């Protein structure tokens, strides 16, 4: 049952929306990716460049899929392409391509400023001198009109050859096409400098597992600290066909009223998808308003904003810290078995066990083992992983309020009473796209991390709020100045991570407090992009945008 009537249901024009907004390609059979950053020297040639690739841009039209989790396709669905292509533009890029000043002046201030200028808000100035260690490709983002400023992002995602674990050849072919159009026609340049990896693009790849029998490679949804990533993503109206939406909205949409037990959580009737306007421009949002967007409406509608963030994971530091902390944690927390203690500590940092099972559903090691024994079937288990709230764990004895996932998606935690509304949280949701990266150069320097792609209608209200208030501050998690134990910046060295324990009558149950946390994740570059609709992209390529 849905409160939305048939005639009120938003039917998204999928062919007008770029495919990477609605879909996380990485999880849908495209485990390899590349981000190519371009600078436009000549607006006219820039528009011609876009024209050249316009027909190859991947839209959100659903294709046939063999993935059991993928939304069902229309009967006339196109075949899956071997490689996808999507474009996004910085503010400087839109200006360079000749988008009228009147339209540009209606863009939000944070987009005008760009991500680098917003570093103090995002915590990206930590550790000291962090901005100087950004990849070369971002060095010219400091001021408007930089000679090598990033203007266009071309995002490529591709299938993988399971025998070699490498991308299918079409990825190289498309990359080469972009290079050759740049070289042959001029006016657009590929910018260089992506850390120790390939020079003219940011390489991305899901982590791979090799089947010992066949020798074939299989992508696994792990990030480099070893956690399953990308489990829960917001579900919004129109994103999925009704029958998919009915299942997916549970735990990933919003609930109304008061949820008390697991049965109520699992009930589809208690959940609604989030408002489309939280993620796409041109639709009403959770405040029942149209999100502010630049005119003409055709330019903004079905577009969105995207933050690109290259987040380096200091895996050795993380592992060392965990190794060092486990014995004391085990002693204070009263866990005798070292494996259990280690797994528990790792889970407390994240809010989920490393395989993604939420602490809210499996409160200790034994319950985790039991959970996995009960839900062996992957399809059932996967659904469970998003279906929980924190009502019966107000003080965080199972899942610390300051743990990563509870911070970035507090669910019912900010309601006036446990288990009540998510209204405050509904305005701070973000779609997370992206893939891990891992590169080593000839001299043996290695960098690993995640390229995060964050989509939302307002970068300031949604992404920046989550980053500033929930990741890099602790007020809403009852954690004072403490930052997220995993992703947080560390502006001072006395930040802690408190792991509460269920208090017992006999005085047992002291919390364990992690201290002297190193900064485990550092930003190595990024920018704010506008992801236009296909109509808007067409308007840009032909240079006809009339804001009057």
């Amino acid at each position, binding site marked *: 049952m849905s409160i939305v009537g048939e005639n009120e249901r938003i039917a998204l024009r999928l062919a007008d929306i770029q495919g990477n907004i609605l879909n996380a390609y990485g999880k849908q059979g495209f485990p390899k990716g590349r981000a190519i950053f371009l600078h436009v020297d000549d607006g006219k040639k820039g528009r011609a460049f876009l024209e050249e690739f316009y027909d190859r841009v991947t839209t959100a039209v659903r294709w046939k899929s063999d993935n059991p989790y993928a939304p069902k396709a229309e009967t006339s669905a196109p075949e899956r392409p071997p490689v996808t292509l999507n474009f996004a533009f910085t503010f400087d890029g839109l200006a360079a391509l000749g988008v009228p000043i009147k339209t540009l002046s209606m863009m939000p201030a944070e987009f005008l400023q760009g991500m680098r200028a917003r570093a*103090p808000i995002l915590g990206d100035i930590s550790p000291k001198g962090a901005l100087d260690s950004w990849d070369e490709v971002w060095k010219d983002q400091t001021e408007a009109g930089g000679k090598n400023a990033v203007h266009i992002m071309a995002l490529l995602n591709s299938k993988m050859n399971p025998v070699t674990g490498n991308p299918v050849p079409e990825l190289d072919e498309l990359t080469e096409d972009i290079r050759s159009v740049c070289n042959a026609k001029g006016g657009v340049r590929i910018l260089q400098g992506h850390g120790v990896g390939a020079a003219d693009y940011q390489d991305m790849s899901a982590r791979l597992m090799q089947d010992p029998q066949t020798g074939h490679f299989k992508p696994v949804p792990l990030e480099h600290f070893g956690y399953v990533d990308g489990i829960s993503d917001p579900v919004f109206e129109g994103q999925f066909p009704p029958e998919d939406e009915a299942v997916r909205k549970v735990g990933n949409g919003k609930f109304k009223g008061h949820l008390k037990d697991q049965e109520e959580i699992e009930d589809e009737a208690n959940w609604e998808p989030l408002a489309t306007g939280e993620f796409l421009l041109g639709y009403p949002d959770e405040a029942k308003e149209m999100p502010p967007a630049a005119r003409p409406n055709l330019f903004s509608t079905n577009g969105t904003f995207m933050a690109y963030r290259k987040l380096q994971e200091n895996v050795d530091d993380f592992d060392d810290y965990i190794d060092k902390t486990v014995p*004391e944690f085990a*002693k*204070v927390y009263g866990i005798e078995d070292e494996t259990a203690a280690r797994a528990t500590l790792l889970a407390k940092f994240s809010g989920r066990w490393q395989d993604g099972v939420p602490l809210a559903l499996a409160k200790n090691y034994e319950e985790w083992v039991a959970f996995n024994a009960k839900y062996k079937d992957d399809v059932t288990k996967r659904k469970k992983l998003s279906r929980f709230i924190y009502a019966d764990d107000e003080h965080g004895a199972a899942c610390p309020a300051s743990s990563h996932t509870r911070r970035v998606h507090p669910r019912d935690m900010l309601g006036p009473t446990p288990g009540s509304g998510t209204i405050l949280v509904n305005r701070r949701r973000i779609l997370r796209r992206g893939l891990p990266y891992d590169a080593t150069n000839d001299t043996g320097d290695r960098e690993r991390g995640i390229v995060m792609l964050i989509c939302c209608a307002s970068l300031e209200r949604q992404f920046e709020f989550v980053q500033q208030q929930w990741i890099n501050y602790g007020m809403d998690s009852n954690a004072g*100045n403490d930052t997220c134990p995993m992703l947080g910046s560390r*502006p*001072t060295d*006395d930040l*802690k991570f408190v792991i509460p324990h269920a208090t017992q009558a006999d005085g047992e149950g*002291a919390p*364990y*407090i992690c*201290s002297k946390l190193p900064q485990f994740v550092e930003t190595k570059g990024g920018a704010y992009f506008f992801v236009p609709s296909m109509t808007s992209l067409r308007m840009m390529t032909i240079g006809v945008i009339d804001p009057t």
Partner: protein
Amino acid sequence: MPSIDSGYYFLTVLAPVRSAWANGEENGRAAPIIELRKTLAQMPTAMQTPHSHSSGQISAFSKSTRTHFARFAVIDRLGYNGYEAADPVLDTAKLAKPSLARTELSSPYLLFAAEFDAPGGSRNYDLAVYLRELWDVMEEDLVEIFSNCVAFDREKISTAADFIEYIKQCEIETTMPFNFYWAEPPRDLPTLTIKGLVAGGVFTGAIMAMVFYALFSRFGAYLAIVPALIAFLGGAIGFVAMRFKKYGDRPFPAPPDGDLMSVLKGLHVQNTFGQFVIEEQGADAAELHEAFGRYLDENQLTKTKPHHPAGQVYR
């Protein structure tokens, strides 16, 4: 005494800003309002962020042992609330008064608002003690700020006593103090009882009724009942209202350990004890006992010092 409540003084000062320097004083100086705004803009705040900590600059108020909050602001003009809605009926009857519905200030004002400890509960005494301390620790800053205000002449205001006198002339009563140190409502607050209110109300009403009855009885006994009844009600309501007002005007008692030095001590204990817990996690009982002894020695819980530095978030 709304300016004093629960052991704190809520000071509100409005000093008119000079419109120009006196003849011969210009010497190429910018106008007083410009100088004032420049001085205020450059005053360091408290160390509230990691960034302001690393700047090494801290508000001069941190040298005071009593200031909880202090702020300066320039009130140049009042907010504009729009026109009063037109009334078509009055307009047609030509009874509408022309109104711009706005208030303008003849000069800008410097607002100085501060909350500080007032253990004495006396407006005169506690204000004088506070301002004297301020004058001692930040005379130069105060002179630089207030000399942009009307009648603050360096020759005339050279001592703490002069400064106190000046501030008192500019002080207005704070009618809505904001204070949050009472975690739970204080016990033994003076309370009004229904019994007392009824008795007092009836008594006052009866006296009033008798007076009015006597006054009006020459018009006939029946006619005098009406004013007597009204007088009774008026007297009774008046009594209750006065009791309410009297009790409402009484300041809340000071909360325990709410003065600045105790708060700073509290913060110190919170910080150091948190650190102590972290360092001793997993320690055995004997070790813990010894360490706690050392902790008590070092931190002197019953003494003022050591305490958290004033005006700093981090240590």
